[in-house]
């Protein structure tokens, strides 16, 4: 009985070997491929792999000329008895023979003890867990599609058709283009979208599979057959380019039309007209090239005649002294005193016009500011003490010294009204009549002098009432007023003037010099000159 039991598996083995020898198709090309793959990865002999849940294939190579009957392949599950597998062989190139054994009923999750004997010697001994040596077929039905965006490809494939292992797979995707290869591992999913590919290039896509290693493990499968797909070209870019070109062209056109229509306005804004006095000075720039002197010379001295012209047009004005000034002891004015011009003297009924130029020329050259000061003070004092001039005695004797400028000189000069008269048009005539000390604030009233700049009218102090002057034998002396309450600023311009008037300017201070002293503190003086003296000459 024991023999029968022992013989039975041997008989079965014989049958198996015969049958297997008859059917050499057990080792097919697929197995060959996997075996070659495994040769690179696994180095423990015998190399074994499981293709599915129900098989195990082990093989080893020997160069002994193909004698499978020499070998014995035994395997033992945990806590079970050993089994034996029939060894088969496959002739390879050269003298190499590949011996293999395929188990058709397997148990997973339990340790398997494999032994290979050649004759009586143990050739190999290996313990393994079958669930950890999977070598699967490549994924099937790999499809590659374009997503519609440049540089993207969408992949999908089928998982290995193994029950109980659906969620335990991991895949690797490889995309190859000219010169470069990229591989990416995908966990679990059977579809994947490749991004960041170069647009407009051809890619070859391949996928392979392997168990994820937790419950089941194994080796990477073979790659699928490559599928080529060309990514979408950057078609958006040409569109964008053309659009931007068109829009910029339109914008340029618009800006051009706007510019042309508002050209004048824009030019005005950008390069504004700078007003030039050219039209007032005919020929100054065009003929004389800006040389003012020449232009003056050629324009018939019109400029200088102008003030006179102006003055001639303007109405002469009488200036009445309205306010008093404190005086030092008066100085007698001697009639006929020829010390200085501008004294209050009898006038002849001469034409003031004649006097004017004389006076002008006379004074203009010899006017000395310091001298003027002293002289003025002198005059002032003299005037105070002077005897009453004829026909103006009323004025002169008036206690109050007012300075007014009245346009209507027909009025009685002694009225002593302070009239507002425009500065620019009035000469400055001062009529004195003070015999007493006055307050220190004589009002100069309406002195017509402004800042004394190049205003022509400021020179009008010398405006003489010509023919309309009252023919009374009245001489009007210009004398400075001391501090006027007027805040007109008399700068020391008079000295720079052409000398027509002898307005001597000082700072205004509300002080009258008490004595006949050089005026250290600048009291307010204005000299205004009108003198009728034909024979006067400035000192």
């Amino acid at each position, binding site marked *: 009985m024991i023999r029968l039991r022992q013989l039975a598996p041997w008989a079965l083995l014989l049958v198996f070997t015969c049958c297997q020898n008859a059917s050499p198709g057990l080792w097919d090309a697929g197995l060959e491929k996997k075996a070659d793959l495994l040769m690179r990865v696994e180095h423990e002999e015998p190399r074994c792999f499981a293709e599915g849940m129900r098989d195990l294939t082990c093989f080893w190579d020997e160069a002994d000329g193909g004698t499978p009957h020499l070998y014995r392949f035994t395997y033992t599950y945990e806590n*079970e008895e050993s089994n034996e597998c029939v060894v088969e062989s496959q002739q390879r190139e050269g003298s190499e023979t590949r011996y293999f054994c395929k188990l058709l009923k397997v148990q997973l*999750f*339990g340790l398997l003890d494999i032994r290979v004997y050649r004759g009586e010697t143990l050739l190999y001994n290996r313990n393994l867990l079958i669930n950890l040596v999977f070598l699967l077929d490549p994924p099937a039905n790999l499809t590659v599609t374009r997503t519609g965006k440049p540089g993207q490809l969408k992949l999908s494939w089928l998982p290995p058709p193994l029950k109980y292992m659906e969620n335990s797979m991991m895949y690797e995707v490889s995309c190859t283009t000219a010169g470069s290869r990229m591989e990416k591992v995908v966990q679990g999913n059977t579809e994947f979208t490749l991004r960041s590919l170069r647009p407009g290039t051809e890619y070859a896509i391949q996928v392979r599979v392997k168990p994820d290693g*937790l419950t089941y493990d194994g080796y990477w499968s073979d790659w699928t057959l490559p599928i080529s797909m060309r990514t979408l070209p950057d078609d958006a870019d040409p569109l964008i380019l053309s659009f931007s070109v068109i829009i910029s062209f339109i914008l340029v056109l618009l800006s051009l039309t706007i510019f042309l229509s508002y050209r004048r306005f824009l030019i005005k804004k950008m390069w504004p007209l700078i007003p030039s006095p050219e039209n007032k000075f005919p020929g100054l720039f065009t003929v004389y090239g800006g040389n003012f002197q020449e232009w003056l010379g050629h324009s018939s001295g019109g400029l200088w005649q102008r003030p006179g012209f102006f003055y001639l047009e303007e109405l002469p004005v009488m200036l009445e002294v309205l306010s008093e000034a404190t005086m030092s002891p008066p100085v007698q004015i001697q009639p006929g005193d020829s010390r200085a011009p501008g004294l209050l003297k009898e006038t002849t009924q001469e034409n003031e016009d004649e006097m004017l130029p004389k006076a002008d020329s006379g004074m203009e050259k010899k006017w000395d500011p310091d001298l003027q000061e002293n002289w003025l003070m002198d005059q002032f004092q003299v005037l105070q003490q002077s005897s009453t001039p004829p026909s103006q005695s009323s004025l002169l004797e008036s206690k109050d010294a007012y300075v007014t400028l009245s346009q209507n000189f027909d009025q009685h000069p002694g009225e002593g009204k302070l009239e507002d008269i425009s500065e620019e048009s009035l000469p400055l005539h001062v009529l004195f009549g003070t015999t007493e000390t006055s307050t220190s604030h004589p009002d100069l009233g309406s002195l017509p002098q402004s800042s004394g700049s190049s205003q022509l009218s400021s020179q009008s102090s010398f405006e003489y009432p010509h023919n309309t002057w009252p023919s009374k034998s009245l001489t009007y002396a210009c004398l400075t007023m001391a501090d006027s309450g007027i805040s007109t600023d008399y700068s020391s311009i008079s000295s720079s003037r052409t000398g027509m008037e002898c307005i001597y300017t000082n700072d205004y201070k509300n002080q009258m010099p008490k004595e006949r002293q050089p005026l250290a503190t600048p009291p307010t003086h204005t000299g205004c000159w009108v003198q009728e003296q034909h024979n006067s000459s400035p000192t």
Partner: protein
Amino acid sequence: ILKTTYIFILLFIWTRLGLPSPLRPICDPRVLDRFIKEARDTEFAMRSCSEGCSLAEPLSVPLTSVDFAIWEKGDVSEQAQEVQSGLWLLAQAISAVRVSITSTALHSLLDNSHSNIHSIGQVIRSLNFPEYTPPADGTVHEDTWRVSSTLELFRVHTNFLRGKVRLLLSHAPACRRDST
């Protein structure tokens, strides 16, 4: 009054827990995958175990091998019983090993494994399998064998989870009913 209400609430919760109330089925495979991962790590750690890793007394452990052809035809409830008894055996073995091993690092791993086994028991219970009552005498007859080293023990532990437990949980009727 606060105290009484507090006690009442505690009692209420405890009774609710004690009752075999239908737990929500745990069907996520990632739950067991995490246990398998940790079991594998423990098995690797046991390879470097130097002291106290050979057992004085062989321990009973379940069989781990699975023949799919047979398993598919088997009865689910029997399989559940088989799994639960195997888990109980493993828990016993791990407790026995913990006493003899001195390394504290391994202690933490052992405790983790032990708690994992209990968690798997909870998962099985959540799938409405009939509960397993361990035999009073402490011995299990069917499908056991003995190991003599901790390395073997934890290899068994890992593969038991990978195989039978996983198959049971992934094809539990409670989970399949939810999915369909």
